[in-house]
Structures are given as C-alpha cells and as structure tokens.
C-alpha cells in the first residue's frame, strides 16, 4: 500500500464522452520525487486534481493513507497533501503576501509567534520579503508562482503535488525550488511534480511516470 493508491480510476469531465483517465492503477509513496510527464492535454492536471481530492473519479477509487479520499473533507486532505495549482491565481486570495503565507499556518492552529517566524523564514527563502506588504495579485506571474509554492511549502504537508511548478520561474528561482524540494524529501516528505521541464525532472525525480492515452507507463 502506498501513501496514495489509485484503483481502476476512470475520469471524464461532466458532459463529455471521452475518458481522460482510463482505468489507472497506481501507488505513490511518501519517498522521493515522482515526476508525471505527458503531452499537452494528456490529463496530467486532471490526475493531479484527483490526487488532491479536488476531483472525484467517475469510476474507481483513490485512498489516502488507507482511507477513501471521498470519506475525507478537503480540509482533512489539505493537512496531508499540499497542492499547487498550474495557475497560481487560483489559490491567492489574501490582501498581502505575508498574510497569504501565514493563512494556512494560522488555520492549523499554530501559536502566532511561531506563525510569524515561519512566515519570515519562508519569505526570506523564496525572496519575497520585499513584497511582504504587496497585494499578491499585483505581483508578476513568476512572483505569484513563487508565492503559491511558498504558501504551500510553509505547511510542510506529507505529500506535495506541484502542477507545472517551474513555469514562469527563472533558472535561479528554479534552483531555489529544487533545493527546497530536496530538503522536503530529506525530511521524509514526498513530492509529485507534473511537468514538461525535462531538465528539472532529470535533476530531481526519483521516479518517472508518463501519461499516455489515459494510462500510465513507468520510466
């Protein structure tokens, strides 16, 4: 049993006849970095949303730590899985960068002094301190992505699911992201990366799976 198990998972969007996923069986552990590749439109983002409970399979099931994902609330899933959307604007809603990073930490019930320390540390690492009082949606696309990633990393979930995390990042920020991913892996947290960035995958992935015609192939 993996940390996440998919059993005979089919998915098609409402009102559409084509199945994006066709009977997927897959286990994902909390160890290392699993990279998911595939052509444009092959269903990578759909797959990642199924992992995070944002979508529910049309047929089949997904289990998280042995529990059916459908039996958990999004908040319960969110404590174990951190999800970064392909479009960072979908997850930024606070008035300042500082609040955005602290939001999840406060919801976890952490004491405010610990929240402040963690926010400071994460802002410094992702070089967002100069924007601490800026409105998140006024940032550039690359900065918004860094912020979305930073806000999820701050929560230190057991598994991170990152959909195209290097899009809009310059080489230097890609390196910072890669180093942080390695740090997460070293602390026994798993990472799933959905990406076309072959260089980044080659550098960090410990497992490679390719999505084609709705099914996965290893390697």
């Amino acid at each position, binding site marked *: 049993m993996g940390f996440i198990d998919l059993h005979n998972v089919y998915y098609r969007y409402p009102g559409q006849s084509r199945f994006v996923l066709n009977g997927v069986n897959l286990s994902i552990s909390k160890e290392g970095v699993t990279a998911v*590749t595939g052509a444009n439109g092959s269903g990578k983002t759909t797959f990642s949303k199924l992992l995070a409970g944002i979508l529910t399979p049309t047929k089949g099931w997904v289990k998280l730590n042995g529990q059916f994902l459908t039996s958990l609330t999004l908040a319960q899933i969110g404590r174990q899985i951190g999800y970064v959307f392909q479009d960072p604007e979908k997850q930024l809603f606070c008035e300042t960068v500082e609040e955005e990073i602290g939001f999840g930490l406060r919801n976890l019930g952490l004491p405010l002094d610990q929240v402040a320390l963690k926010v400071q540390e994460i802002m410094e690492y992702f070089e967002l301190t100069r924007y601490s009082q800026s409105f998140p949606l006024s940032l550039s696309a690359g900065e918004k992505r860094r912020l979305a990633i930073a806000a999820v990393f701050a929560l230190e979930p057991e598994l991170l699911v990152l959909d195209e995390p290097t899009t809009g990042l*310059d*080489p230097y920020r890609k390196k910072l992201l890669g180093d942080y991913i390695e740090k997460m892996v070293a602390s026994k947290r798993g990472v799933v990366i959905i990406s076309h960035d072959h260089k980044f995958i080659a550098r960090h992935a410990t497992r490679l799976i390719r999505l084609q015609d709705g099914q996965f192939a290893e390697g």
Partner: protein
Amino acid sequence: MDAIVVDSLTYRYPAGREVLKNINFRVGPGEIVAVLGLSGCGKSTLCLCLGGIIPHYLGGELTGQVWVNGKNTRDYKVARLALEVGLVFQDPDTQLFSATVEDEIAFAPENLCLPAEAVRERVDSVLEMLGIGALRQANPSKLSGGQKHLVAMGTVLALDPAILVLDEVMAQQDSWGKRMIKDILVDLRRQGKTILIVEHDLESVSIADRVLVLEDGFLIWDGQAADILKEREFLLRHKLADEV
C-alpha cells in the same frame, strides 16, 4: 523603418513601483528578439507597453515613447494596434472567451468584417499551422495550459500582424509543442515578421537573432544572441543560467 522603437520608456504602475526604467531599443523587420530576465524584472510589462495595453487600459505613469510599425502607441486604440502587434499574454486565460476554439480564432477576423470564406480560410490555416485541428470544437477554457497558449497564438496569427509579441508561450508546452512553435517562428521570420519572445529557458531563445536582458527594470544587455550564449559569466552573475 524599424518595426519597434522604444525610446526612453519609463513606467510605474498605478500606486506601485517603477517597473521599467529608461528603456531604449529598436527592432528591425524580420528580426527575432528574445527578452530575458528574472521574474519581476519588467518583461511582461514591456510586452503590455508594445501592445498598447499600457497606458490605455492600465493607467499608471508612462514617460517616453513606443512606436510599432511607425505608430505611436499613445495615439492609437488597442484594437487598432492589434492589427500591427499580435500579443499573446503569459496567462492565456485572460484572452480566451469564446465557446469553441474555432469561434475564438474566427473572432478577430470576423470583427474586421472579412468575408465568411476568408475567415474560414484563416481559421483552417491557423489550426493546421499550430497542429490543433482536433481541438476545433473544444471549449478553450477546458484545455490544458499548453493547448490554451496554442489557441491564444492562433487568435493573433489569424490577424496576420507584422509584429508578434509572445510572453512565455513555450513555458507550458511539451517537447513537441516547443519544437513546433520554434519552427513556426522561424518560418514567420522568413516571411518578414518581427517577433519578440519572452522566455526563461535559454534553449528556447536559440532561434533568436538578438537578446535583450532586463534587470530590475533596466535594460542591461542588448546584443546578438550568439554572443550572449558565449557570456557564461554574465549569465551566471545575473542568474540567467544554471550553474551546472
């Protein structure tokens, strides 16, 4: 006549920071120019200035001048400038709104009141060029990020502008999509189009003739693409290349 002239361009967002600082450059017809720089250095803002979105829609303080195909962007509406400059945004969702890919690509030519037959020809030609014929009846909002960028490119190519400004259109493409876009851009250059591409990936700028580098709003490099690729130290110092 130069296709693009940017003269002493400085821009500050409304109630925000100064993002472009005294930028000067010219681009000739049939040139591909790549713009590099760290996130937040002003690349996308420059694209918005070239398409006239700044200052017409976003306000803020703009000083200096921008000419595209001899037209000062201050003096022409964005809709008119769109005939000269095809601008593909970094976030394609901001420019896709139709119910099908076909309608999306036909929208601008139809608004030019082209005959229905000519509109259909343009749509067919663009769908084929971008390899997205199978998506003709798909809803653009349901497509993947990479496919959305191809559709957004299609909408501007359907207008056949002399200048293309593409903001990170290759970032979400698979290898096939990247190769196809590069081939299309090289072909368009052959036809005399002027192309300005914003990308982070140095491999993606291999088709460029010239490279501009922005840093914190300043233009710090304007030179031949072949030259900057040899400047390993410069690229590393300005964090534009990987250390390995």
